[in-house]
């Protein structure tokens, strides 16, 4: 009996010893580097939660992350140092989740040729400047900015919409312009004259507030409302717009907000929230990690469309729009607008383009972007050089 017991124990121990390394081998470490805090209710949190989605979707996947990597919050470290730490932890894929990291990603990737780097929102692969171990990914949030603009256009009673932008570049210009096109279209749909619509863009200078460096998003949101806007659309990574709108609504004002980036952003003020265009990075993160695991990853520039069969599907859609409680009776019109966008995007006879990005369209300086009936090429949207004619605000 004792001999049998000893035998059983020995076999168990041997089995454990044999299985333990196998289990350890299954671990796959990936890094996520955030430009802001992981709980910003915006851009960085969306990436952070995508990391958790990967952990939940791929057995053995483990995230290591570093928040707020920027000279103001972490002056003592650099992208190279953080990546070195992640590689020491065993990271095989590193997501650098800001265009602020674009240049450094290319440099650091050259120093770590065995690690795959994914820079989110950059275009180094498209321009051919990226090392072979760098890929780019971005969601086609332009569609959802059209929807955001539409929600604002349907709701505004003063005909005055504010757009709080971060810094000025091609990405931020095209997102503001998409919101403008959506607002203009739906304002007219609701019986307004689009020529009467005021759409003002204020750039704060960065993706989030840096005291003493950027304009204060709280103050700028208040300025919008004080100057007659009743809807403010956020283009920044943090939730000041919806927070201010909620405070003012609590004081009896009839104001609304459209936050940005993060699926749960409306929770900051559901009574004023018209909806939120959001990124859903999880499915793409999973796809990329699986490709790296299988050895099938190749560098690519991916500008991912929504899943038009269900734009809010957390397992399939790269971007989405969650309508807010404050939409009220406009919810049906907005849903129809989304359905029309889906019809446009999935129509095999329509060339690759964004809806409403069709002529006649001019840039702010009067230069023609698209003639009557002409569609704007999607790369011309990507590299939009100015705001559109009719928008108020700086293009450069």
């Amino acid at each position, binding site marked *: 009996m004792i001999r049998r017991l000893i035998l059983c124990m020995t076999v168990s121990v041997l089995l454990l010893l044999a299985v333990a390394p196998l289990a350890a081998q299954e671990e796959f470490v990936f*890094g996520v580097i955030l430009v802001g805090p992981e709980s910003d209710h915006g851009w960085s949190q969306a990436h952070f939660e995508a990391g958790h989605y990967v952990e939940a979707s791929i057995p053995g996947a483990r995230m*290591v*992350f*570093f*928040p707020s990597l*920027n*000279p*103001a919050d*972490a*002056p*003592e*470290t*650099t992208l190279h*140092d*953080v990546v*070195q*730490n*992640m590689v*020491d*932890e065993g990271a095989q894929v590193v997501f650098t989740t800001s*265009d*602020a990291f*674009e*240049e450094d990603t290319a*440099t650091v990737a050259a120093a770590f040729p065995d690690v795959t780097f994914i820079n989110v929102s950059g275009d180094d692969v498209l*321009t051919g400047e990226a090392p072979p171990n760098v890929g780019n990914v971005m969601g086609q949030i332009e569609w959802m900015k059209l929807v955001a603009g539409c929600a604002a256009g349907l709701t505004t009673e003063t005909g005055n919409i504010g757009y709080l932008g971060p*810094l*000025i*570049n*091609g990405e931020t210009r095209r997102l503001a312009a998409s919101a403008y096109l959506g607002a203009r279209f739906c304002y007219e749909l609701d019986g307004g004259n689009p020529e009467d619509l005021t759409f003002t863009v204020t750039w704060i*200078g*960065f993706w989030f507030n*840096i005291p*003493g*460096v950027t304009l204060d998003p709280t103050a700028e949101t208040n300025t919008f409302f004080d100057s007659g806007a009743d809807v403010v659309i956020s283009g920044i990574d943090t939730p000041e717009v919806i927070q201010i709108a909620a405070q003012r609504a609590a004081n009896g004002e009839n104001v609304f907000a459209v936050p940005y980036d993060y699926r749960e952003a409306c929770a900051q003020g559901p009574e004023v929230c018209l909806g939120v265009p959001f990124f859903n990075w999880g499915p793409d993160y999973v796809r990329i990690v699986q490709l790296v695991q299988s050895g099938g990853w190749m560098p690519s520039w991916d500008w991912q469309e929504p899943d038009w069969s269900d734009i809010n599907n957390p397992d399939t859609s790269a971007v989405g729009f969650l309508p807010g409680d404050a939409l009220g009776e406009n919810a049906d019109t907005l849903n129809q607008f989304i359905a029309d966008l889906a019809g446009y995007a999935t129509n095999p006879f329509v060339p690759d383009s964004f809806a409403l990005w069709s002529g006649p369209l001019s840039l702010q300086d009067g230069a023609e972007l698209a003639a009557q009936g002409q569609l704007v090429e999607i790369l011309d949207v990507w*590299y939009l*050089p100015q705001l559109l004619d009719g928008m108020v605000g700086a293009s*450069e």
Partner: protein
Amino acid sequence: MSQPKTIRVLFVLLSIGASLLATSVLVLLVGENPIEVFGHIWQGAFRNSEATAGVFNFWIPLALCSMGLIITFTAGLWNIGVEGQIVAGALAASWAARTFVLPNEIQIPLELLLATAGGALWGLLIGILKIRFGVHEIFGGVGLNAIISVYSIYLIAGPWQPPEGGSAQATQPFSDYALLHPMSSQFPVSLFTLILTFAAIIAVYLLLRGTRWGLQLKATGKNAKSALLLGVPTTRTTLTALMACGMLAGVAGAYRVLFTYDSLRPNVSGGIGFLGLLLVLLTGMNALWTPIVAFIFAAILSGSTRLRVSLQLDSSLAGVLQGILVLSMLLFNGLRQRLFERRRASAAPPASPLDVQPLVSDSKAASGE
């Protein structure tokens, strides 16, 4: 009657022990093992030569700023504007890096020279505001910090934006000939700047200890009015102190753009100047202690990167540790002084490194009026 050296060292050790204890309690409260946390900070800072290089790369600008601040504090000046002086140096170095195309051996000294000039100019402005217009150096410094910070962002997003378009994130990376080069891939630190930093430490030590200017700084700092009556040129001393600090801060700024980032970035100073202020207050303006404590701070901060990556613990814990360390050292220093004051029969004891606190000089006396 001076305090025995052993007592002073004992109190320093006590303060370090108390801060470690307090931090350990905090770490336990968040459910982590303090030994593991301190181990990770150590690992993060010194696990290999590359990690240690990271410590040096943060130490170099921190030490330069701190040595500069010793000069201004000695002259009784609260040089809050040191942050702006770092940015001014960074801007000047960036301008040179973008403008000149020269061999690296000529380009680098030129860039550093311009960086010192930029920092000195920004320091001089604070002095002029103080002396000619009666603007206290704290307010002048804060204002000038904001101006230069906004101007740097304007340059990054505007005239100096990359050819593919401005993103307000950074300028185009500077060309290789314009950059400081690492001494090796195993220890990526600029040897030239490292030597320059050690030279600055020795120079400040000697200047304050054995020169007429050092004496004038001390006299102005202790009592500007009396110093003026005794013939000390307080105006010149104030201006030169701010310029000297600006020069060192300018080199720190140059290091940030020519080595750390390879380009100009918003917020390039990153609060290093403010950390330097804290350090110098902590060490009582001691020119030998300051670079050592700066190295400890640099190690804690650099090591904390690993805390986040390995333990997924908030890296601000390192900031908490640093804050507790500062508070603890100040607290124990105060306790030590109080203890000895009771035992003193008369007169103040000679200054020890941790005793001396800067005096804010009277602006009229500093201006020589």
